């Protein structure tokens, strides 16, 4: 169970990216985070694994206070939270397998990983994850030789290497065409349903929300403007979330 309480983030420049946001995510839920670009979705997800330090508020995960964790404790929390990014964030010049193995860095002894040595089990595990997302044959290629959809699968495999209890996906399909988008979302869905991993996924398109999400929260200028089930987003709610001038398509 993830509890976010009165979370506020004010950036150095004075931008209030999150404004007193509170919500809860039960274990194993697929939660969609929607909102216009600039509404604070990325900031929210990054506050949860403390890539960004929140200005105020509290985040509790299974009772543990993430916002108060020391750097040492933070590493142990982070290794249980996988993250998937819009621009995949692979290390381009490294091999696919190295990118996937990087998901183990929070577990392995640092001294060995400096020498680029991973335990045998981890290497086998990495191959298995690549098989799971269907690109095991690409293991020895450089990451930037892959197409966008393939790169995102590597990103998912990297997150899976962490044996995560939760996955934060920041617009994972925004840079992909619709067909690929569905194949990536299906992987996330499978991880959520089969492995029971909690998923927080920010999304652009409402049809994806309806298709994959158990529940939705919506942000507008840093404020939580909607919390509920996808089917509850009616025209009025839609205008609250996306603004007066927005028009519903599809």
């Amino acid at each position, binding site marked *: 169970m993830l509890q976010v309480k009165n979370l506020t983030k004010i950036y150095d420049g004075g931008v209030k990216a999150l404004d007193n946001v509170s919500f809860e995510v039960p274990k194993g839920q697929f939660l969609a985070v929607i909102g216009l670009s600039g509404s604070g979705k990325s900031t929210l997800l990054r506050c949860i694994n403390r890539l960004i330090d929140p200005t105020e508020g509290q985040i509790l995960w299974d009772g543990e206070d993430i916002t108060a964790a020391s750097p040492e404790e933070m590493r142990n929390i982070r290794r249980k939270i996988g993250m998937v990014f819009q621009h995949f964030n692979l*290390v*381009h010049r490294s091999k696919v397998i*190295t990118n996937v193995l*990087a998901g183990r*860095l*929070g577990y*392995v*002894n*640092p001294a*060995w990983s400096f020498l680029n040595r991973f335990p045998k089990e981890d290497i086998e595990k990495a191959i298995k994850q690549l098989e799971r997302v269907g690109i095991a044959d690409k293991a020895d290629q450089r990451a930037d030789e892959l197409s966008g959809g393939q790169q995102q699968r590597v990103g998912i495999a990297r997150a899976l290497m962490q044996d995560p209890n939760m996955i934060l996906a920041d617009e994972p399909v925004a840079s992909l065409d619709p067909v690929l988008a569905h194949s990536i979302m299906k992987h996330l869905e499978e991880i959520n349903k089969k492995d029971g991993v909690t998923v927080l996924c920010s999304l652009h398109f409402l049809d994806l929300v309806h298709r994959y999400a158990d529940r939705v929260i919506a942000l507008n200028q840093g404020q939580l403007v909607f919390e509920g089930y996808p089917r509850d987003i009616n025209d009025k709610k839609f205008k609250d979330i996306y603004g007066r001038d927005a028009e519903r398509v599809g």
Partner: protein
Amino acid sequence: MNEKKSSASAWKSIQIGLAVLLGLFVYAYGFDVTKVNLEELRSERRQESLTRVTRTLAQPDIIGYEQQQAIVTMPLYVPCPAGGLLSTLPEADTSGAYLTISPACAAPGETVQVEGFNFPNNITGPIRFIPGNDPLNVVELGRESITTDSDGHFSASFLIPDRISDAPQFIRVTISESVGKPYFTQNAKDTWDKIIETVFMALLATTAGTILAFPISFLAARNLMKSVRSPLTSVSLSVLGWPIGMGLGYFVVNQVGKFTIPLSENIVVSLLSVIATPFIFWFAIRWALPQEEIKVPTLSVRLTRLLVIFIAILVAFFGFFQLAGLTTSISLGIEKALGSLGFLATFLFQVSDILRITTPALGALAAGGALASFLGRIGQRTAEKSPAARVKTINFIVASLAGATIFGLSGWLVEWLYQVGRVEYTFWGPIIVGAGLGLLLAFLTKPKATLPTGMVVYSITRTILNALRSVEALVMAIVFVIAVGIGPFAGMMALGLHTIVSLAKLYSEQVESIMPGPLEAITATGANRLQTIIYAVIPQIIPPYISYTMYRWDINVRMSTIIGFVGGGGIGFLLQQNINLLNYRAASTQMLAIAIVVASMDYISSVLREKYV
């Protein structure tokens, strides 16, 4: 409104006029101080010496022949004697090469016709007027030279200089003929030696500079250092950890050396130890550092591991000393056998010497770093877990101790540099001030707040880099010539230091411009800072690092050719010497060598760059 516009444009014209005037003034002054003078360039004297020097430069002194010299002289009177005593001049010996002069006497400023017969064919040599009546006199006048035709004959008009004498004086033609096979002149050999020295100076400087600039560049990268923050307790304890750890490490490793260096005189013992220590080290570390651990180990397990690691490291240092001993024995043993490859033995000997000297320093650094990070962690934990009031008390103690340490050590440095000799100024004073500042800092900071240690390290590193970078390598070379004596070692040190600072700057700019995405992704997996650098930063910076290193290699080759001007060894030393001795043909050889080396290095590095970047 129109008026406003026109007044504005008038003001603009005035501004432009003033700017032009100012420019004129600046350049006029510039011409004056740099003494721009084309008239001097056009003067006959300059033109003549320019031509002469250029011609000499065009004939580099590389290949020589054994020379056979023949001197042919012919007397004449200057001016013509009153009685016309022509018969007193001896007849030329026509069996060999000989000269005829007509007329046989002349007044200064007149021209005589000199003809030569039976000379070697197609050969050039100087023709001179020899004052006094000794045909072998070293004093000679004139600048002409003659060239014989295919019959060994020449004819030249010769202007008689203003030297008069009653006795006969001489016209002398010197010809030298190349005989035998061509050989490389001494100058060519010296140039070869020095150019090799130059290239290797650049190579070593670039290598050492690159290796050291690499880690420094991370300390000077804002994006990496900005997020490094630690509480005062942790910072103070690390500050205390460094000197204590370094002292302990140096002492312990030296003790290891003291007891084990005698052992290494026995080559069997040292050989066995060199073979055995890596295995022992490897297995100890394998045991003490499990690859992956999900559960937190118990305290006793942790302590045992620490002990094993400590012993493993001692064993490693023992191995270093044995390796140094072994290398020394080998180098001494094979020196004779290697013959002309003796430099390999010398290299081994120097390496073993370097190993022996650096091992205690390495131990000091390792122990300093280890203790500092260990204490820093304890500090971090204390600041996080203890109640604020207790942290505050601890901060008062450790911060004042840390302040005292920093200032005390700085005072010691000042004492060493300036030999003040007053303990109250260089020891007690700084310690009290440092402790006071530490107390003040502990008083001002909230006990649990974190300090921007990363940015402090970043600023200090940047400042030192910028300060050192503004000192030219040539100037550094002068300092090193004083420190380690004239020669290529001084040049290498200067180039190496300059390489470190300039590469560290360039590298760190590359680190600052990496894509932040992968960095974020690796951090999110729970990787620690060093892991993040290795997995997210280094792969991104490899190509620019290679290209900058090659660029620096180019610069170092260029610099090493002139660093000899200030005594830094290499070809510059020879070049400067020859220029000063007006030995332009020799200097020309060195210039040619420099041009060839620089051009070919340019070519090689551009090929490599294309291939790998």
